[in-house]
């Protein structure tokens, strides 16, 4: 249904599971639904295992979710030993491995370790996580660091390289253009917006890290605006992300200029959201008597 060419990646459909919302795609429930996606982006891995932030990690807001997971992950060694082998029997979906680090060196070391593994179809550089004290978003707004990162990563791997951008920077257009200039294959945007909540009873920030990442339908109009704006300035394929829960939402992003879309909070609400979105897209195509409900033209 709706095969999609996302730069160098061929997807069976344009719906991708966003990093951090589908774990490593290996437990019973994830295994049941992963084949419905065009691609799954695994939870961001780091060089060393990370326990992540203490509770609370999740807080519902009007039509949204604040999360402060803190890049909890098993570390690259355990990922390669325990989770990647479980993908060897799954060959109809693309696997994107997301990586995160404190420094450019960290990202490069991760990419070097991932490069030999044929099952990994692409690497997503998470330079936009709002929930860690170092790295993440701190790199995502720094053009010099983006240039260094991409230059070095492209020297050590020819795997398609996706850069996930932060909406919490003043210069996201410049960042996207810098990515294109220095060898990124695909841009994914956006990661979560920086937000916070206050514990009124105890008169202090709810989250241990003070700030947290906002996602879900509340951010969709802003994420959509960013995708539309970036589309005007770069020619790289874009994965549109931000509060997509329905086929209608997906179509907005695809018409605005994304080549594929990723769903995140939607997976938390229902692991079968991807099926509902694909069925909606098929219905749309059927109503339009078209092979695809969305053209490749950008408004």
């Amino acid at each position, binding site marked *: 249904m709706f095969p999609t060419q996302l730069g160098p990646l061929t997807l069976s459909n344009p719906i991708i599971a966003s990093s951090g919302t589908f774990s490593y795609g290996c437990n019973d429930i*994830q295994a049941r639904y992963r084949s419905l996606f065009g691609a799954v982006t695994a939870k961001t891995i780091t060089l060393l295992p990370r326990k992540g932030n203490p509770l609370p*990690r999740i807080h519902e807001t009007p039509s949204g979710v604040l999360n402060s997971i803190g890049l909890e992950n098993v570390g690259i060694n355990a990922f390669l030993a325990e989770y990647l082998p479980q993908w060897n029997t799954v060959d109809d979906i693309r696997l994107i491995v997301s990586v995160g680090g404190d420094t450019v060196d960290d990202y490069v070391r991760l990419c070097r370790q991932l490069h030999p593994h044929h099952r990994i179809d692409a690497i997503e550089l998470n330079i936009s996580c709002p929930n860690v004290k170092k790295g993440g978003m701190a790199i995502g707004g720094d053009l010099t660091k983006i240039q260094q990162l991409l230059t070095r990563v492209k020297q050590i791997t020819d795997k398609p390289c996706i850069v996930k951008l932060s909406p919490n920077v003043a210069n996201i257009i410049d960042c996207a253009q810098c990515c294109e200039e220095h060898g990124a294959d695909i841009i994914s945007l956006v990661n979560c917006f920086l937000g916070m909540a206050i514990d009124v009873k105890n008169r202090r920030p709810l989250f241990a890290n003070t700030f947290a990442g906002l996602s879900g339908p509340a951010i969709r109009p802003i994420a959509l605006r960013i995708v539309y704006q970036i589309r005007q300035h770069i020619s790289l394929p874009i994965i549109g992300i931000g509060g997509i829960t329905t086929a209608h939402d997906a179509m907005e992003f695809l018409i605005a200029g994304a080549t594929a879309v990723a769903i995140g909070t939607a997976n938390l609400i229902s692991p079968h959201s991807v099926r509902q979105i694909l069925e909606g897209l098929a219905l749309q195509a059927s109503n339009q008597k078209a092979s695809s409900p969305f053209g490749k033209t950008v408004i």
Partner: protein
Amino acid sequence: MNNHYATISENRQIGSRYYLLTLSWRNASTLFFPGQFINIKIGNTTAPLLRRPFSIFSAERETLSILYAVVGKGTEILSTMKNGDKLDCLGPLGNGYFDHYTPSPSDSIILIGGGTGAASLFYCAQWLYTKHIHFTVLLGFRSQDDVLCLDLWKQLGTTPIITTEDGSIGTRGVITEQLSTNLSPQSHILACGPLPLLAALQSFCSAATILASFEGSFGCGTGMCSGCIIPTQEDDGWTYKKICVDGPIFDLNTILFKGSNLCSQHS
């Protein structure tokens, strides 16, 4: 786990703050095990956005029941729903008490709970009753107003030992004070209740088995997001486990209360 649009057959208020919701669910007593939960999408809008988890109170051949208090927007909406309305449910989810422990008729089994924690223990009791396995029930509450469904417990051939903090019914005090007369090192304890109760059980209780049900602020309930973590002891240190998939039932002795902010999170 399945996605089931369950029809409400009853949603009645009991006591001053609680509701008993019964859903049609074919083969519920075969599909669900004591300790497991369902995750309900309340309404079809984005507010509330996330599903709400509920422990199973009881399961029969064609129905499933949950016991809930109105504590926020989601449960407030739930309390207004009528017979014949449908609810978008995911379940069964999580592990059950009897994934950890296989009871036998000769075992000394104690079910101990507090507040709405008593709800998940009821299905435990129902399950043991159908297998002709004897158990003792200890339930603690703030006041008489919180004591629910005593008539249903009695149908299982048991009269719970009750404590209330204000002494309005049963013995005045906290339920852990009733443990010593019922406890032996060979006892198997199945617990569900507020974190202070569970922490107290861990600190002074010695038994063959102590299993407890934990709650958390779930993001997904299905192991996707790592939002519902609980610190647990490991051989070489400690780690976070996910309540929704590694639990909600845990060996109480592995849970790290001290030094974590576990007790500052309300369920």
